[in-house]
């Protein structure tokens, strides 16, 4: 087949996955948070309120697209795209199984982090273009936060890159096949547990999610950078936020939890066929944990957030990368078999 056509079809498949995830995640968030908050969540539209998201999307699409006369019109229109497109591009690097993947980039992990770091630019643009003081503060907070937290996020996965020796998402998962000591899956969560904690914290900050939702900070900035947005422009930002939480959870699954692998059944053909389903289940468990955190913790203050990022997470992740490197190289230093 025409390689261009294949690429386009793959991108469309990624878009489909992103939109489907958005629909599922919005419903899931409402139900999960509702359950944690002793509420019912949506239960009116359709069975168990399943059609609530559909109705909301219809509402967003048909809603008047309010744009204040004082906004910077082109930047204001550009900002939702600047938030949405990187989120979509990040999907292209995901590999649900050796066969179910949108691309097979050798630098897949690097690419993913590169596009994710574009998201805050969109948020800053949204905050600036809105010409609202609350939005501006939200945008500036987002900038400061993302600079502080992208570094530890990247550093926290470097240990895994060192251990697996590749940036290719498929190969990273493949290197987690087998068992340690006969019972422990060779997932990187076990040797890299401190890195996983760092990844979680930095990932939450990257997602702009409670306890790090500085740029939205409902009780301080009303809704921060998204203040002046309505209709589908807001919908795009909202969707990007949800798909980002899917991406971070999928990344955690790939890096720390063995992707599509079922321990002990790596060579089983049926298990490989079920790969994408296993991957999705693991990812959704991760998303559930994110929602759990979101439904429980209060928000940190912006100066505490930056202090945590610069003074704790970055030194800790640097130290961990160094430690991992030394341990990997030790056997060869002493002439061992490695």
């Amino acid at each position, binding site marked *: 087949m025409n390689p261009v056509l294949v690429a386009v079809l793959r991108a469309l498949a990624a878009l489909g996955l992103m939109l489907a995830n958005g629909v599922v995640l919005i419903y899931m968030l409402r139900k999960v948070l509702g359950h944690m908050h002793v509420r019912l969540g949506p239960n009116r539209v359709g069975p168990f309120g399943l059609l609530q998201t559909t109705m909301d999307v219809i509402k967003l699409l048909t809603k008047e697209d309010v744009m204040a006369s004082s906004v910077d019109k082109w930047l204001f229109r550009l900002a939702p795209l600047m938030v949405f497109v990187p989120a979509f591009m990040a999907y292209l690097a995901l590999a649900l199984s050796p066969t179910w993947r949108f691309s097979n980039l050798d630098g897949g992990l690097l690419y993913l982090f590169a596009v994710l770091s574009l998201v805050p630019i969109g948020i800053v643009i949204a905050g600036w273009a809105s010409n609202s003081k609350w939005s501006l503060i939200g945008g500036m907070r987002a900038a400061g936060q993302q600079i502080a937290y992208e570094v530890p996020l990247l550093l926290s996965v470097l240990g895994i890159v060192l251990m697996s020796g590749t940036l290719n998402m498929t190969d990273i998962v493949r290197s987690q096949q087998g068992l340690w000591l006969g019972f422990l899956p060779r997932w990187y969560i076990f040797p890299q547990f401190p890195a996983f904690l760092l990844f979680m914290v930095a990932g939450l900050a990257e997602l702009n999610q409670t306890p790090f939702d500085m740029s939205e900070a*409902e*009780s301080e900035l009303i809704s921060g950078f998204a203040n002046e947005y309505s209709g589908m422009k807001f919908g795009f930002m909202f969707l990007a936020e949800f798909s980002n939480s899917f991406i971070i959870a999928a990344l955690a699954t790939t890096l720390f939890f063995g992707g599509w692998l079922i321990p002990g059944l790596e060579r089983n053909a049926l298990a490989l066929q079920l790969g994408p389903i296993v991957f999705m289940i693991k990812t959704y468990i991760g998303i559930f944990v994110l929602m759990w955190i979101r439904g429980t913790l*209060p928000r940190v*203050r*912006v100066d505490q957030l930056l202090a945590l990022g610069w003074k704790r997470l970055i030194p800790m992740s640097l130290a961990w990368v160094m430690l991992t490197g030394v341990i990997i190289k030790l056997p060869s230093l002493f002439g061992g078999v490695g």
Partner: protein
Amino acid sequence: MANRRPAAKKQPAGKSAQPKQAAQSKQSMQPKPAAANPHLLGEILPEGAYEVEVLPKGLHRVPRGVDELATEHLIMNMGPQHPSTHGVLHLLLEIDGEEVITGEANIGYLHRGIEKLAEHRRYNQVGTLLDRSDYLSGLHSELAFSMAVEQLAEIEVPRKANWIRSLVSELNRIASHLVWMGTFGMDAGSMPGFLYALREREALLDILETITGARMMFNYVRPGGVLMDLPPEVEPMIRAFLADFPTKLEEYDTLIGKNEIMQARIKGVGVIHRSTALAFGLTGANLRATGFGWDVRKERPYAAYPELDFDIPVGETADCWARYLVRMEEMRVSTKLVGQLLDGMPEGDHSAKVAKVLRPPAGEAYAAVESPRGEMGIHLASDGSDKPYRMRVRGPAYYALSIIDEILPGNLIADAVMTAGSLDLVLGEIDR
């Protein structure tokens, strides 16, 4: 419209005044020495009152203007529509980046003229108005008003009426503190606390509905006693609540107050010095958090409180954290009080024999109760007719709000939210 905007932008209102304001705020930023108001200290402090030696300083982190780089202050309108101003409070903040330089409260959005309206109501109708002033603790305002009327008309209240009054007061206090606890958590971004708190409050409102017939707008405490006797089915309801509530409260304390993030947010934030608190007329938990054990229930006992055994929780650090601890402890104290009141509930009439249309002799009276927010006082002037000549409400939240200009400067925006939240403001009572 389009022509007017640029002109408004160019208005150099802030420019000339800015350096002056900055200098002023710099001065006010200095932590005030303990003896700033020497006439207040030493004389007012009762025996055994706890004087705080070292208070956490007002936090000051952001340097103002780096390398002579000109920075401009923003004027922000926080409210009247804002998720964390608890109603319609309007805070005018002058900010430098994230730091608040000056903060000013602008009130009156909920003004209904309750004091004036009271001059056109008979004495047994005023409670309806007062329920709507402090809508979270209507029974306390009603009680203060009824006590003032009783002073004027020299009505002897039966013992049972007093006990019922204390009982519903304490139930109402817990309900009000629960709302405060939830919204305080929500100010910090913690959603679940609010909904859990409202769940407990629901049980309390059911109890109050069984007693008074209404969930919030009670009009139950009347001059001479209370409207109705306790219904028999309410005792098991209260007992069930008392059995359940203490464990729940500990859970919520774990969820909100024992959370490390929350403690980092509120410890050392919004410090109100005791002398400042006294000078501004703060009462209730806001004053007690500074270590000053003033409680109307103890100092000028009313209703059944002289016969009850309870302690007044007192804070030490005078910051948001101390106010949180004091309010949580007050809920525990109130729970115990409800138990005592239920056990010792006397027999007898629930109300004195009072004329249908009260005409107290001409004169003035002041009566105060300890509402969840502090000293709720009613000053009543009568000219001998069937309507008050003048009613003045001394609302504790109004005084608590007045201190906000003093404590906001030097804090971050996020701290301003927490500080305003910790004062337990009810705008219905502030604006009246």
